[in-house]
């Protein structure tokens, strides 16, 4: 191993997590690990808030004509829940995990632009606080997470809620864009010597593509937010039909952002799944190239499908057919991924850790969400199902059963790296089953509610056959789910202090982050193993059978193994 590149020793001592250096060390930091963790912590904080909002909504909907929340209150809460979960929970989770992991996975010392990185975080945090300040400034926004015009215009919406919504998201959006740029540059320029762009781990690859998606998708949103603010405070008329503007124009802008956004919220989750499944199957990722290329395909297609959110607008059959075809196409690269994951597990030696359980159930949940998604690509069935509880069920299957399950898997998997301590596996499995049961109980039944005619965004509903019963089941499921999240937070809290020591490489991992200490030192690596394949640590640990000695497809095996299938 003569070609081991040595990273020069860094003299300045660095605080590790848990050491007390005062608040300043966090506020002033430009270290990607601290910033990544701050992103995650912020996301969890907002997740708790958004979760409480979700519980309040579920209590209100637990029975017909409930009066727990007033309509104005409910409308503010569902708007804040959706906005929080999308912009202040899922995006920060995706960005934060990338900011923490990408430099470690590519053997870099930090992100390419560390100060920009810090700026991005603080913009996110203050954008979120600005949004929540609306509660004390005379009323939270109440236009839903996509704030359709003209209802979001001042003529119909006189409080300052929508203004705070637009400003908060604008600030947050700039932060997100900065992170996107930072990812692209980091992955292009900061890879360890010897690591080709085609050899980065899949999580790095999906984050790389995600960077491009962010750079393309956020500007339409930010432009539209400014236009909305001009309308509301400077008497502009962009989206005011009563004085010559166009209400539909807002929808085009919003969804030109909104659909790529859906993939911004899921691509890194795909990456996490692609890291965790192989390790616990003791095999390489199946069809790496196919997954990588299908990710590019998804990114391109995601710009060409946005109007499937507008099939109920009545834009005409030609227009709708085009977007239906493009949307259906996206199912192909998604299907490729699902089957590649299945065949990653296929023939492996499986270790059912909690992380693995989350990742496998991700495949199930995401498939359900994908199938209900097809009913939105097929225009006539979209005409029936859109804007109902069916779509609420669908989006929670992809966002919660999809992205969030992957994140939970990722937390169980990388928590030891970030803190040096393990999360308890036994309790973890109980926590997993609570989440799994609670989630499905909450959201599966909502498919039926939607098909029975229950529109979304309603603060209450009349007594129709089974409506109260089904909603009550959903609310009970939500309570179980709430319990499981509470349990997770307590588990993490305790594990940071008292968890079993993890060591550097508790899972016998394949990628570079497991080659350094847990938690990693400020410079990340003292030595970096030679990189000749996508699994440098495997090669290191198995000098008799390294990946790079095998045929590129992995079909030709140089040695026979003891357990031929």
């Amino acid at each position, binding site marked *: 191993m003569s070609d081991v590149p040595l990273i020069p020793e860094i003299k300045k001592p660095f605080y590790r997590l848990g050491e007390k250096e005062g608040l300043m060390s966090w506020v002033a930091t430009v270290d990607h690990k601290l910033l990544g963790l701050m992103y995650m912590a912020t996301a969890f904080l907002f997740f708790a808030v958004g979760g409480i909002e979700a519980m309040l909504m579920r209590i209100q909907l637990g029975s017909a004509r409930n009066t727990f929340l007033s309509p104005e209150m409910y409308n503010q809460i569902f708007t804040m829940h959706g906005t929080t979960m999308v912009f202040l929970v899922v995006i920060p989770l995706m960005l934060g995990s990338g900011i923490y992991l990408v430099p470690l996975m590519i053997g870099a010392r930090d992100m390419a632009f560390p100060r920009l990185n810090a700026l991005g975080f603080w913009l996110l945090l203050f954008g979120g606080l600005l949004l929540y300040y609306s509660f004390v400034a005379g009323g939270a926004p109440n236009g839903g997470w996509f704030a359709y015009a003209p209802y979001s215009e001042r003529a119909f919406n006189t409080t300052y809620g929508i203004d705070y919504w637009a400003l908060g998201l604008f600030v947050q959006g700039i932060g997100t864009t900065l992170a996107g740029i930072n990812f692209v540059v980091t992955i292009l320029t900061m890879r360890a010597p010897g690591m080709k762009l085609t050899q980065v781990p899949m999580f790095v690859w999906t984050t790389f593509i995600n960077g491009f998606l962010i750079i393309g998708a956020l500007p339409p949103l930010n432009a539209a937010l400014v236009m909305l603010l001009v309308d509301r405070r400077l008497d502009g008329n962009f989206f005011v039909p009563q004085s010559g503007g166009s209400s539909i124009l807002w929808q085009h802008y919003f969804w030109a952002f909104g659909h790529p956004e859906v993939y911004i919220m899921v691509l890194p989750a795909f990456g996490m799944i692609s890291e965790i499944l192989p390790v616990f199957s*003791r095999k390489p990722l199946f069809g790496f190239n196919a997954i990588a290329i299908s990710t590019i395909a998804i990114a391109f297609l995601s710009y060409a499908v946005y109007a499937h959110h507008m099939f109920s607008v009545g834009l005409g059959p030609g227009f709708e*057919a085009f977007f239906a075809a493009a949307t259906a196409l996206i199912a192909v690269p998604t299907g490729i991924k699902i089957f590649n994951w299945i065949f990653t597990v296929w023939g492996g*030696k499986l270790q059912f850790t909690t992380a693995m359980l989350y990742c496998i159930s991700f495949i199930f949940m995401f498939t359900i969400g994908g199938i209900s998604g097809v009913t939105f690509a097929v225009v006539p*069935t979209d005409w*029936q199902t*859109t804007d109902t509880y069916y779509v609420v069920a669908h989006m929670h299957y992809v966002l919660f059963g999809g992205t969030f399950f992957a994140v939970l898997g990722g937390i169980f998997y990388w928590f030891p790296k970030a803190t040096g301590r393990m999360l308890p596996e036994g309790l973890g499995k109980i926590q997993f089953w609570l989440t799994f049961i609670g989630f499905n109980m909450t959201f599966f039944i909502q498919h039926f509610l939607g098909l029975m005619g229950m529109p979304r965004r309603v603060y209450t509903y009349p007594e129709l056959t089974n409506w109260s019963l089904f909603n009550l089941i959903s609310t009970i499921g939500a309570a179980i789910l709430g319990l499981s999240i509470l349990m997770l937070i307590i588990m993490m809290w305790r594990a940071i202090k008292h968890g079993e020591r993890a060591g550097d490489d508790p899972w016998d991992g394949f990628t570079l982050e497991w080659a350094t200490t847990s938690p990693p030192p400020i410079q990340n690596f003292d030595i970096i193993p030679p990189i000749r394949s996508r699994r440098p640590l495997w090669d290191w640990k198995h000098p008799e059978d390294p990946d790079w000695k095998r045929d590129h497809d992995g079909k030709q095996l140089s040695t026979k*193994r003891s357990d031929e*299938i």
Partner: protein
Amino acid sequence: MFEPISPHGKDIADLFIFILALGGIVFALVVGLLTYAMVTGRRRATQEGLPRQVAGNTKLEIAWTAAPAVLLIALFIPTIMVMNSSDPAKVNKDKPDVVIIGHQWWWEYQYPNGGVVTANELHLPIITDPKSNGYLIHLKSADVQHDFWVPQLGRKIDVYPDKENFLYLKPQQAGTFIGACAEYCGGQHAWMRIIAIVQPQAEFDSWLAAQRTPHTTSAPTTSVGAGQGDPKRGEQIFLNNTCINCHAINGTTAQSPIGPNLTHLGSRATLGTGIIENNPANLARWILNPGAIKPGLRMPGYQLSQEDLRDLVAYLEEQK
């Protein structure tokens, strides 16, 4: 949605079931493969050595790229067919049978051919003629975005102030069918429900004729007994209050289109798009404090005396 009463609704329901069947096969495949992999993988975990380091298989990749593509073409063809059949191209757009206007948070229904304007109960005739596309509906909004959706009748369609939308409705079964506004439109979006009443043609015609007659106010037949209102006095109370700023009653000077037309209020089964049953006690409650029933709605409450209230209610409920 699965008990459609129109050919349009039926086509969509059938297509949905077809997708569900295809989706079910895919889901079964995923579950089957993954379960098998899990069961064998767990058994293998107890064995010695490492599994084969297989990293891909080009033939399989091609297979699971091509198969979904074929499946999607199989879906796309019926998609286009059902798009045309469940929402046929519109002809004679300038002659709609019904004009529907969405308001925050109630529905105005105009029948231009019958010269009728009413609210909150959409009446439709049964249409059996196989050549007819159905009743042509023209949808507009008086304020913000709304969406007209009666699942059993067929597709939903948005309602905008700056976009004219059209829809064919072709109900084939009598009854009362419930729908709702499906595009979030503000505070009382939840109680912007739709009540569609489908009747045989003859019944529908006589309903239309009845709606066309202006309000005729009868003098009290006998001396007004306890509990019985005086509609004649009620009419004066209605006209002397600000009700006329918002409401219309045909045959009187009240002609404002801002709120629901009240000419034949007595013929409606509910108030406020279904939030309460329409009976004298509820109507009195409504006039005193509608905000307590439908918080945030666009109508003020009126502190009327018991007697005034009783007469006003009698007047409003009189005309069926």
